[in-house]
Structure formats: C-alpha cells, structure tokens
C-alpha cells in the first residue's frame, strides 16, 4: 500500500507490525543498540525535555509550545505536526490549527529547522496523498 502512495520510508514505533517491502525508520524515545538493523529517530513530545540527541519534536498542542518553541529550536531539529490530530477538529478549530501550523513553518524556516507534516496514520486508510499539501 505504501508503494502505491509512493511512500519510500515508514516511521514506526514497533518494527514487527510492518512488512519488509518498505524501508523502516524506528521512532524511539532513547537510542538503544538492541533494536536490530533499523535506523532510529529520537522523538520527543515534550518541549521541555528536548536534548542534544533529539531528532524530532512532535507538536500535539500548539498552545503549550507558543512561547517556548522559538527558544528551544536549533538548526537540524525536525518539528513535526500530525494530520491525524486535525481530522477530529471542526471547521473553526481547523482554521486555527492551520494558522498555527503556518506560524510554526515560518519559525522553522527562519531557524533552519525541518518542518514535517506527518499523517499520523495508524492504518493504511489514515495515510495522506502526497498531492494534498
């Protein structure tokens, strides 16, 4: 399915749930040597606990990071937002979500961070077509 959507690499928490036809990157909280041959990304969901080893900051609630983000971001850090979070929102909240995502994008651009839009998919139906954004 990932091939049909032109997805080359999938990020997962548990490598046993995906078939080997796709390139897999493990999303971990701490780097561990006992995770096989998979590449690893250190993911952090709490802005206050970002360390030098953190690769990705996942933003779930924009209101919590409004003031801290500009102080905490550093070049080469990935800042990730998830579309799965936005799916449940009504039109007003979705508009707000988009505007806040745009602000984060501007900040990432100025701080030379990578802005990542993730589908946050739990199944193949939750994936997002590449033409969408």
């Amino acid at each position, binding site marked *: 399915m990932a091939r049909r959507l032109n997805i080359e690499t999938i990020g997962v928490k548990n490598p046993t749930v995906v078939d080997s036809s796709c390139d897999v990157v493990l999303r971990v909280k701490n780097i561990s040597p006992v995770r096989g041959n998979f590449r690893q990304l250190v993911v952090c969901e709490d802005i206050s606990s970002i360390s030098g080893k953190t690769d990705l900051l996942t933003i779930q609630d924009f209101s919590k990071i409004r003031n801290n983000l500009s102080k905490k971001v550093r070049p080469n850090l990935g800042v990730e937002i998830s*579309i799965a979070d936005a799916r449940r929102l*009504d039109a007003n909240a979705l508009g707000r979500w988009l505007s806040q995502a745009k602000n984060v994008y501007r900040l990432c651009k100025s701080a030379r961070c990578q802005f990542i839009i993730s589908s946050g998919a739990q199944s193949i139906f939750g994936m997002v077509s590449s033409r969408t954004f």
Partner: protein
Amino acid sequence: MLSRKNRRRYLAVLYEPNKSQTQVMRDIQGRFMELFGCLATELAYLRVYNSKQNGILILSCDLEYLERILFTIAMMDQSMTVVMMSGTIRKLRERLIQSEIRLN
C-alpha cells in the same frame, strides 16, 4: 461568448469498507461544505461513480476545486485517502485494475 467545458479530475478514494459508498460521499460533501461553504460545494460539482474494487470510491470534481477536495479528504474524521487521480474515468479504471494486478 465561447462556452468551454470545465475540466474535471477523477479520484480513487480508499476508504474503510464498513461504510457504504453513499454514506462516504455524503460525509465528504458535508465536510467540504463545513470547510468551504455551500457555494464552493455546488461549484465543485462533486459526483460519485461505481467502482469494481471493494473499498474504493471514484469521485469526480471540477479541476479548479481539486486542491480543496484533496484537503477535505485528508481532513475527514473517518480515515480515507486518495490513491489515484486521472483526467478521465476510463484511464482511472484501467490504472486501478492494473495496480490491483501488480500488487496481488
């Protein structure tokens, strides 16, 4: 004045097969209306077509509203995704059959 036919795009939407095509279409239309309003919904001219594949809905829209439709589908509460897109329904159906053969 020269009348020109509006260009359309045909989308293959993969959805969880526990819902009927009519229900899925109604949900997409409802979300589109919620996000972009009644006027855009009418002008997008959304239409649904039969598909032989289980869990695939063929949807067509005006080319001008394609990006809004893609956005709407990405923002649906019920998970669904666009797997293929084409300018003609015949081509889309052919490609759906081909990809089904290739993946099986």
